[in-house]
């Protein structure tokens, strides 16, 4: 089947089997390898994307379900070549080690701050709960998110 949608504001489409995951189609068919393939069961959050305003794991989304959807991937978080504030904050605090979880945290961060410009620490921790980082222990990421929240409040 052919599915058409927008990704990062651009009209895109793909010929797919409806049951394939969005993650597979992003990486293998559309050349968007920023969303990472790790657990493939929705636990790690490294494939997080925003679909019609909701932060979801693209590995759990059947692509056949996406006709007409508006999708934002990590490639679409920076605005016209300028880093998104959450990307700046993660860079500044050194919230990256191996980098595999980073796209998921960037998408989760952009989604969180899109809804709530000054979340408190409990809200930030809750927002993190679907993104696993095995290197940094979350401290630097928490500081990055906290710094951005403080800057906004």
């Amino acid at each position: 089947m052919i599915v058409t949608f927008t990704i990062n504001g651009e009209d895109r489409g793909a010929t797919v089997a409806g049951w394939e995951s969005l993650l597979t189609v992003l990486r293998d068919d559309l050349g968007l390898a920023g969303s990472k393939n790790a657990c493939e069961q929705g636990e790690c959050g490294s494939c997080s994307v925003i679909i019609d305003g909701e932060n979801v794991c693209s590995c759990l989304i059947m692509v056949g379900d996406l006709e007409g959807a508006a999708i934002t991937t990590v490639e679409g978080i920076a605005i016209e070549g300028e880093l998104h504030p959450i990307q700046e904050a993660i860079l500044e605090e050194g919230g990256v080690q191996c980098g595999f979880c980073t796209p998921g945290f960037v998408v989760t961060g952009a989604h969180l701050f899109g809804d709530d410009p000054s979340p408190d620490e409990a809200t930030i921790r809750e927002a993190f709960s679907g993104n696993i980082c095995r290197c940094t222990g979350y401290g630097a990421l928490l500081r990055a998110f906290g710094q951005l929240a403080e800057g906004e409040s």
Partner: protein
Amino acid sequence: MDFVAALDLETALDAKAEHPEAELLAGGTDLMVEVNLAHHRPHGVISVRRCSELLELDEHRIGAAVTWARLERGTHRALAQLARTIGSPQIRAAGTLGGNVATASPAGDGLPWIAAMNGGIEVASRDRGGRLIPWDEFFVGVKETTLAPDEIITAIVVPDDAPSVQEFAKVGVRNAMVIATVSCVVARGEDGFRVALGSVAPTPIRATSAETMLNGAASMDESVLAEFARIVSDEVRPITDHRSTEAYRRHASGVLARRLVERCLAA
């Protein structure tokens, strides 16, 4: 047939009548794991995620495709509590109560709540119309239900006498992204206490002996509550598996049920 994204119930029911072998997709949090990790290749999928009738939500009827993210902001206290413990924000934005019911895992977190409310599962088929199945006739075994191949779950129906005093708790190895070792809902209505548990039997269960004992007690003193907890531990039918042991699950069942009774008494 490859994939039908049904935007209304009629489309979904037509597709299911013509392709009873097709699999229903709601949030994808169960089905896609099978596709990704078990190399499952569905012979046809009918998505009901955006089916307008299944997205309806009010006090008495919860559309099958309503997500946990919506339920965690809802008015049924224990349902909101349990919705918030499910998976992660990403999972709650996708997963649905109807999907939890359809999968019918012993560990389905929404199921003890339905049991405590005496809820019904509303289903429909194109050729035979709709029916409302009481929860204890719907769940019949581990991932086994009485849903017919041409039927679709349309809603979870909450009776008028559903108690507003209701509490949920579960035990797991951590807070986020964990499957319950034991889950429990206690509600207090005009008919007395209702006690339902998950992950301790092939289906969600009511601890009816413990309910009878508690509702017959003259007062809620320490000895009554301790005896209640003991009966709950006795009454559940857990197994030992990779997540926990039978003994721990029995113990935790009694502890959780008693704790929730105390919270209901304080409410």
